């Protein structure tokens, strides 16, 4: 056996094909205003925002081992920052979305320092405490409507775009833009040096630490970057809703429970998982939503069954069967001249 006959590659035929298909789908989605109706565009916008939240949660829980049940803290924070910056500081809404992301990073730093003292499941509940602190604090801010919330003033809504159609198109493209940004960021992050460190930590924290990886720092970066991006998604969510209240902004069910179910059902710890999970989640919702609470019970049962019977989710099942990886993250060893035997 000659080592020179082998080479290590990241890419694969499937990954190249899926990249081409991905670009095509993206182009079709960008052109949606010309082929989709108003309600479909609204639904797709919502799908994109949930996909962005799910990809971010997956980066934290699936790769960094930071299981948070308090991401609604940043969703609501981003939403409130959008309202505060446009109403009080007079920023244009699109600029305010970016600023909400920056502010999200800034508040996440002291939170991370404090909350990283809790480990594992206690970390999870600790994040929830923070989300509650945010909810109760914003309920005290009377200039933003206190506990009953407030609506985005008409003048600011008009400043996004003059016509209703223009606003709908812009908010659709912004949602599409953020989901592409988030998935690209997660993908590039995981392929970077930091991503390699993260994968090592996921596989074995003790071994990673002994190889000189700064575990605290790597997790800290993930937490803070995720917080900033989640705040931007939150700002976009409430730009679509045009109304905010503490209970809606910091809802654990809407912004964390659903997101967790999406990731678990799709397949945790893969980039593809949240995409599949989001599609399944919305397919279930569009068919079962009339059942109300029964739908949520079904969702909970499905999540438990998936966790117990197929912990790697739907994508894990597909990958085990077909050895697929659409986003080339891992390395694979290939025999360069397959015809020449050793």
């Amino acid at each position: 056996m000659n080592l020179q006959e082998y080479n290590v590659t990241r890419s694969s035929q499937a990954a190249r094909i899926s990249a081409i298909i991905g670009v095509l789908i993206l182009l079709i989605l960008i052109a949606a205003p010309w082929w989709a109706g108003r309600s479909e565009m609204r639904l797709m916008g919502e799908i994109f925002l949930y996909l962005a939240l799910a990809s971010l949660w997956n980066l934290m829980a699936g790769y960094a081992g930071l299981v948070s049940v308090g991401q609604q803290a940043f969703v609501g924070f981003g939403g409130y920052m959008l309202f505060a910056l446009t109403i009080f500081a007079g920023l244009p809404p699109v600029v305010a979305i970016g600023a909400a992301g920056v502010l999200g990073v800034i508040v996440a730093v002291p939170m991370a320092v404090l909350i990283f003292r809790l480990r594992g499941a206690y970390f999870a509940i600790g994040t929830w405490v923070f989300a509650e602190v945010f909810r109760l604090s914003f309920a005290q801010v009377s200039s933003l409507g206190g506990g009953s919330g407030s609506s985005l003033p008409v003048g600011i809504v008009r400043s996004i775009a003059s016509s209703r159609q223009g606003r709908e198109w812009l908010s659709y493209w912004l949602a599409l833009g953020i989901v592409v940004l988030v998935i690209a960021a997660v993908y590039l992050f995981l392929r970077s040096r930091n991503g390699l460190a993260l994968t090592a930590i996921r596989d074995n924290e003790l071994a990673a630490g002994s190889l000189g990886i700064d575990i605290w720092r790597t997790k800290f970066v993930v937490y803070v970057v995720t917080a900033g991006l989640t705040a931007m998604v939150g700002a976009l969510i409430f730009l679509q809703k045009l109304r905010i209240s503490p209970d809606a902004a910091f809802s654990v069910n809407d912004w964390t429970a659903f997101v967790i179910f999406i990731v678990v059902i799709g397949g945790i710890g893969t980039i593809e998982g949240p995409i599949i999970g989001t599609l399944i989640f919305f397919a279930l919702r569009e068919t079962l939503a009339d059942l109300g609470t029964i739908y949520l019970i079904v969702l909970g049962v499905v999540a438990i069954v998936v966790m117990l019977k197929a912990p790697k989710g739907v994508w894990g099942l597909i990958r085990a069967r077909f050895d697929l990886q659409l986003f080339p993250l891992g390395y694979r060893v290939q025999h360069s001249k397959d015809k020449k035997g050793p």
Partner: protein
Amino acid sequence: MDWVNAVVQGTLLGGLYALFAAGLSLIFGVMRLVNIAHGDLIIFAAYLGLTVTMTMGVHPLLALFVVVPVMGFFGYVLQRGILNQTLGDDLLPPLLVTFGLSVILQNGLLEIYTADPQKMNAGALETASIPIGSLSLGVLPVLTFAIAVAVIWGLQWTFYRTALGRAFRAVSDNQDIAQLMGLNRRHIYGLAMALALAVTAIAGILLGIRTSFDPSVGGGRLIFGFEAVIIGGLGNLWGTLTGGIILGVAQTVGAKIDPGWQVLSGHIVFLVILAVRPNGLFPRVSG
């Protein structure tokens, strides 16, 4: 004098929080499992109590004799049927499964009992009070506090003085060796969950007599219990009681300053203690 009153009432409220926390602390101590559905189980117990008092026409405190065994049995079945499958080195499965359970319980209760706030009627017990000096102590809060102390004393005694407690401590220290010594850890875990949910049943009934409740309030109770556990220090039951008292006092004193600050000031005190003493005030094991 108002401030003294706030502190005393807060201390008594802390008894209820310690009851929320005791089950959480017990489960974590024995099997390193953090039960996200704990708050919803408390509310579930309260609704069970409500059903028992309505159908049998008995006093809520008598309903304990039905609800405690039912919840204990439910805990054993839950642990052996579902939760035992999630235990292992990986943290995620138990967390996500109990999270799913929380959503199922919440929406199941919503489906059966609707979203209307409910309350158990305990008659004269709700308003009875004992005057002490210029203070007036409600009989129900004093009773709650006394029950909390008794429950924690009972759990402590079970842990360190009985064969069952020895088994709990053994599986907690080292699952595999405990198994080699002839303990069936699946059964022991089932018993631990049964005991924890029995305590939860007591907490749920006392909560249901004290305030109104609806299916959505479980998450808040989980957080109070969790804060009491962390403030007191992991694995220390008397610490948990102290943590509950600190949380209760923080809330009543906060409410005295501004009613909108009641819950918020509890959270803030928790975060301050986390910043100053990350392992809680009286740690026994490292988390």
